[in-house]
């Protein structure tokens, strides 16, 4: 009853588009992350010249649908000769470039707010303790603020990563041949909607499962302080250091 041959053939065709989906995902996620650092830095600044533009950016990119953003960047910008003659056209000419740009700009807005939430939730006392010891602002940022924020935002960011992977499917609407694009192409030719989309959904499901596991492993590695209290075995006071490997464990 179930046409396994067709399903297998479809899966293979869809998997051939997997590199496109994955490169879309990784490049837009990483570019978006870098951009979000800049935006959140501006957002939390005390200078209104920096924080207001950042707030506008965040509001625009969180407040409009991603598909509209993508269409605006791909078709909208392409209508202006001034854009076509600029150096940006090298990237904006190709649908893949536009998709990456659009996805990155969108995730930057959300990620900036996620990071800001993490920053606000750092116990202020820990920052004061760093200041009281004489840490410079840079050292404070590197050693206290960044690590604590990272641990606070991981759960929220893993959600963002999952949403981004699913958002790459929208690139098919601007003629990028990712998994969803190929799926639609197959359906156009065979009219077997149910089977083809089920295969595509399965592929996205597997990818998202991998992301979830990876994030959870990362969370586990980074939060020994949230785990169970270790069993206490008193050790004799050591007067010579360097012989106990545990105390020389490196930290993140």
């Amino acid at each position: 009853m179930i046409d396994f041959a067709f399903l297998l053939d479809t899966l293979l065709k869809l998997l051939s588009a997997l590199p496109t989906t994955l490169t879309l995902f990784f490049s837009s996620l990483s570019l978006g992350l870098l951009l979000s650092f800049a935006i959140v830095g501006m957002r939390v600044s005390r200078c209104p010249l920096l924080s207001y533009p950042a707030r506008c950016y965040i509001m625009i990119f969180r407040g409009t649908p991603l598909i509209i953003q993508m269409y605006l960047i791909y078709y909208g910008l392409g209508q202006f000769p001034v854009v076509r003659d600029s150096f940006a056209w090298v990237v904006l000419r190709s649908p893949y470039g536009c998709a990456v740009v659009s996805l990155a700009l969108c995730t930057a807005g959300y990620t900036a707010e996620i990071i800001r939430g993490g920053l606000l939730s750092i116990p202020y006392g820990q920052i004061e303790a760093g200041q009281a010891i004489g840490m410079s602002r840079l050292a404070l940022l590197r050693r206290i603020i960044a690590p604590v924020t990272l641990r606070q935002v991981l759960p929220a960011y893993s959600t963002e990563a999952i949403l981004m992977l699913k958002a790459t499917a929208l690139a098919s609407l601007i003629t990028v041949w990712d998994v969803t694009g190929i799926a639609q192409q197959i359906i156009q030719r065979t009219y077997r909607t149910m089977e083809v989309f089920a295969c595509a959904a399965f592929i996205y499901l597997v990818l998202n499962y991998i992301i979830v596991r990876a994030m959870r492993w990362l969370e586990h590695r980074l939060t020994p302080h949230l785990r169970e209290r270790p069993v206490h075995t008193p050790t004799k006071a050591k007067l010579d250091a360097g012989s106990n490997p545990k105390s020389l464990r490196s930290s993140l």
Partner: protein
Amino acid sequence: MNTQPKAALSVSNIQKSYGQAHVLKGISLNAHKGDVVSILGASGSGKSTFLRCINLLETPDEGSISLNGETIEMKRLRDGRQVPSNTRQVEQIRSRLGMVFQSFNLWSHRSVIENVIEGPMRVLKRSRAECVEEAEQLLQKVGLYDRRDYYPAHLSGGQQQRVAIARALAMNPQVMLFDEPTSALDPELVGEVLKVMRGLAEEGRTMLVVTHEMGFARHVSNRVVFMQDGHIDAQGTPAELFEGLPTERFRQFVASHQLRSAE
């Protein structure tokens, strides 16, 4: 008691307002090497604010702070307030002032020993091996050597505060500032922390301690300062204050504390 011509810590005319509330109305204090100064007062008297002004966690609107002769450079802004003009100097002075907080403020993502070596490694730029060795000795001193790989979340309040003291000691500070170090602890854990502090006092450390522990103020410190409404109401040796009871306000303060501890 050694009195030396140059004070280890010299603070003069510290004033601080938050909006309309004038919290500190001109506090001056000199602490010499080896002094253990207890700062007492009711809530709202400004004692914690005063302590936090010393290492510039709060910026005093007026007044100057000198550590071993070096004064913190300040500049005046257009609206009359003053701010430190040399951040590098502030960081350096802070590194020579150790602070122990009421809520411990250990870094939760670092283990006990990592908390202690963080300062010496990152701020004093010493080698890791050196820092670890010294940290282990300090942890032995405060009695927490065998929990050096634990995380703050796995420790009791008293244990965390002792780690915080070790962390402050790791910087080898010239003056130590204690901001109500036992106020957040359960009564049965207060003793272990006071014991460590007593040990430090006996070693000859210069300490400024904001506290409610009358016993410590009376028996361990060599000077007591009583603050009220942003002023210093009374100061002197423990004997002068606790036996002499020089002012009415101080008498009431002591009486209310004795009542409380008798309950």
